[in-house]
């Protein structure tokens, strides 16, 4: 499966996972509800997935979240780790429609990106995360679904605002195709 991983992708996964850990540990914005944060890791994950594609995105989510759990809590919440990986893949799928390296990130791209991210969050947190929680930990169904839905909403907002902003800022650093003009 990893035959095709280029050196650049390998490094992107490593550094991406490291940034994921640091942001998850230090940069989450706590809300008034206990144990609930606006995670800034997912907007970052979205940016990485769109730049480097679904494979890198998935692995950054998986490795980054597993390391974050391990380094912060000394144990791994496998259900959420797996979902982080899937969410990274989901974000990455939008990379096929958005050519961020061409420096174009306008209204159309913003709509496509947000469409993908909202659907991804919905499937990941409202469906897969609760099912894994129930299967692995036998937690009550209504609690896990409530948690999942609130995480999905919060993350969709975070990615919608910050992720879009990151992508826009990144696209500005790329030179647009045909931006050179012959001197008159």
């Amino acid at each position, binding site marked *: 499966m990893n035959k095709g991983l280029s050196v650049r992708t390998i490094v992107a996964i490593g550094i991406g996972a490291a940034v994921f850990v*640091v942001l998850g540990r230090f940069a989450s914005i706590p809300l008034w509800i206990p144990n609930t944060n606006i995670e800034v890791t997912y907007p970052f994950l979205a940016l990485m997935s769109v730049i480097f594609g679904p494979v890198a995105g998935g692995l950054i989510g998986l490795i980054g979240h597993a390391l974050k759990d391990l380094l912060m809590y000394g144990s791994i919440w496998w259900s959420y780790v797996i979902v982080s990986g899937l969410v990274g893949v989901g974000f990455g799928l939008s990379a096929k429609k958005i050519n961020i390296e061409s420096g174009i990130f306008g209204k159309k791209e913003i709509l496509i990106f947000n469409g993908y991210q909202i659907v991804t969050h919905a499937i990941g947190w409202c469906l897969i995360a609760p099912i894994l929680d129930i299967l692995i930990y036998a937690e009550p169904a209504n609690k896990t679904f*409530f948690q999942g839905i609130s995480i999905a909403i919060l993350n969709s907002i975070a990615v919608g605002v910050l992720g879009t902003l990151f992508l826009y800022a990144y696209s500005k650093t790329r030179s647009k195709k045909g931006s050179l003009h012959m001197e008159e």
Partner: protein
Amino acid sequence: MAALLGYIERSSPIHQLSGLTKLICFLLWSFAAMLTYDTRVLVFLLFFSIIVFRISKIKWQEVSFVIILILIFLLINNIAIYLFSPQEGVKIYGTNHVLLELAGRYDLTLEQLFYQMNITLKYLAIIPVALLFLVTTDPSELAASLNKIGISYRLSYSITLALRYIPDIQREFHLISKAQQARGVDLSKNEKLWRRLKNAAAIILPLVMSSLDKIETISNAMELRGFGKHKRRTWYSFRPLKKKDYIALLIMIAIFSAAMAITFYDGSRFYNPFL
């Protein structure tokens, strides 16, 4: 600055085991604790892991900040479970012993207490072993071990890179954050949520951009040194398995099989003392 966990150098029987042994033990242990819901198995796993923890000579103070974090998490999780589903235990164990009559469906039952105790045990049983795996395994040996259990060396190398760069990125994050705070960017609770979101971006964006530059530099350096040219690679830090590694692996496999046998012999993951 609250730290993250890291490798703690020491001389103990656990440190002397090969990283490969510790990785396999950690994974089997996680699977066992994830699959089982049998109280007897969970209690055994917890006690055994505490004994192993003692052998490792890791001090309580070195990891206590992490354990306190987990205990807070578990407490909140338990309260949430009770709020959302106070009769979950009754549903699972099929009997109903009311201890205390409370309003509506919030009657406190023995089954619910037992069920929540099991959930807590399940989370707790993984902690000592995961902690040990993390603090007694040299990061560079971890990559070698991952490669040995069949993960491609490219991916193993990604994980080493991540562990190698976490301290650097952490330092950079704090630098940027201090610099931005000096310029008046406030991240504390005094700001409105929307403003804080924007301020967070003012710190994260520079970090992300510099990390993207780092990716280019590192991947060029690796490419120049011919990384990824061959199908296999050797690992400088790999320690071959010795006698004690085989003994540890045998013990672990025995524990895993016994745990699975006890858990599933009656066809249910749950141990039911109420029947």
